[in-house]
C-alpha cells in the first residue's frame, strides 16, 4: 500500500499580528517545510515529536479546567492525584499489539508509547476536595473548583 504525501489543505493567513502563537506555528510550518518534513503528523518535524500528552489549562473565576490528549489510554492505566495545588498525571500509554509474530510488517509508526508523569502547579486558590475528571474519546478533562472564600464576590451597592 502506497502512502502519498499529505497535501496542505489550507494555509491560514495571518489573522492578527499580535497572535504570537499562530506566528510560532507558522514559523514551525515553514521550518518543517525547508527540511522536507512537510508537516507530517504531530510526530514528525523538529517541534512536534511528542512523548507525553499535550495539556491545556484554563483558569476562570469559578474553576480551573485541564484537558490532556491521551489517545488509546484506558481508564485503568491513568492515575490522577491532587495534593494541595499540585496536580499529578501519571500513566502508561501501551504500544498496540504487534499481531502475529514474524508475519507482520510495520510500514510506518509515528505513534509513541511509554509511561509519562507530569506535575502541574495550579493556582493556590483551587480546592483539592472539589475535583471532577472524565475521560472521553482519548481526552481527559479535569475540573478543579476554586475555594469559595477566594472567589470574587459581587457587593451590591444600595442607592439611597
Amino acid at each position, binding site marked *: 500500500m502506497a502512502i502519498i504525501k499529505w497535501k496542505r489543505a489550507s494555509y491560514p493567513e495571518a*489573522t492578527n499580528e499580535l497572535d504570537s502563537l499562530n506566528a510560532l506555528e507558522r514559523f514551525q510550518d515553514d521550518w518543517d517545510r525547508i527540511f522536507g518534513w512537510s508537516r507530517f*503528523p504531530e510526530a514528525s518535524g523538529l517541534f512536534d515529536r511528542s512523548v507525553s500528552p499535550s*495539556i491545556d489549562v*484554563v483558569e476562570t473565576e469559578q474553576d480551573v479546567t485541564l484537558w490532556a490528549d491521551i489517545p488509546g489510554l484506558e481508564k485503568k492505566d491513568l492515575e490522577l492525584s491532587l495534593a494541595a495545588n499540585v496536580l499529578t498525571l501519571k500513566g502508561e500509554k501501551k504500544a498496540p499489539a504487534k499481531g*502475529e509474530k514474524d508475519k507482520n510488517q510495520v510500514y510506518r509508526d509515528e505513534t509513541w508509547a511509554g509511561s509519562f508523569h507530569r506535575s502541574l502547579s495550579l493556582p493556590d486558590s483551587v480546592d483539592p476536595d472539589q475535583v471532577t475528571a472524565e475521560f472521553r474519546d*482519548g481526552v481527559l*478533562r479535569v475540573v478543579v473548583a476554586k475555594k469559595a472564600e477566594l472567589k470574587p464576590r459581587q457587593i451590591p451597592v444600595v442607592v439611597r
Partner: protein
Amino acid sequence: MKDVAKREENRRSLVPASRVLEDSGKVQVRLEMPGVSREDLEIRVEGSELTVVGKRQDAETHGTWLLRERRRGDFHKTFSVDTSIDLDKIDAELTNGILTLTLPMKEAAKPRRVEIRSA
C-alpha cells in the same frame, strides 16, 4: 471579534499520528485522533483514495490560558490504497480516540505457497 471568525474558517488541519502494518493478509491502520467522537468522524473511499476526516469540538473557554499545548484543528488524512486491497470490506473501529482501520487484501493478492509435487 472579526479575527476570531476568520480564524475559525481557516481551521488548521492536523495529520493524525499513524501506524500502518501488514499482518496476515490484512493491512491495519491506526490513527490517533484524540477528541474525535463517532459522530464527528468521516471515512470516505473515492477511487483508490481513502480519506479520513475527524472534526474536533474545541471546548469553549472564556478564562485565562495557563498552559496551551494541544493543537487546535481538525484531523485530515488521505491514503492512496493499492489495488490489492478489497475496498468494499474496510472495517473501522474507534476506541478512546484511536481509529483502527482494517483493510483486507483481496484473496488473489495474498501470498501463497506453491507446493511442489514429488515425481
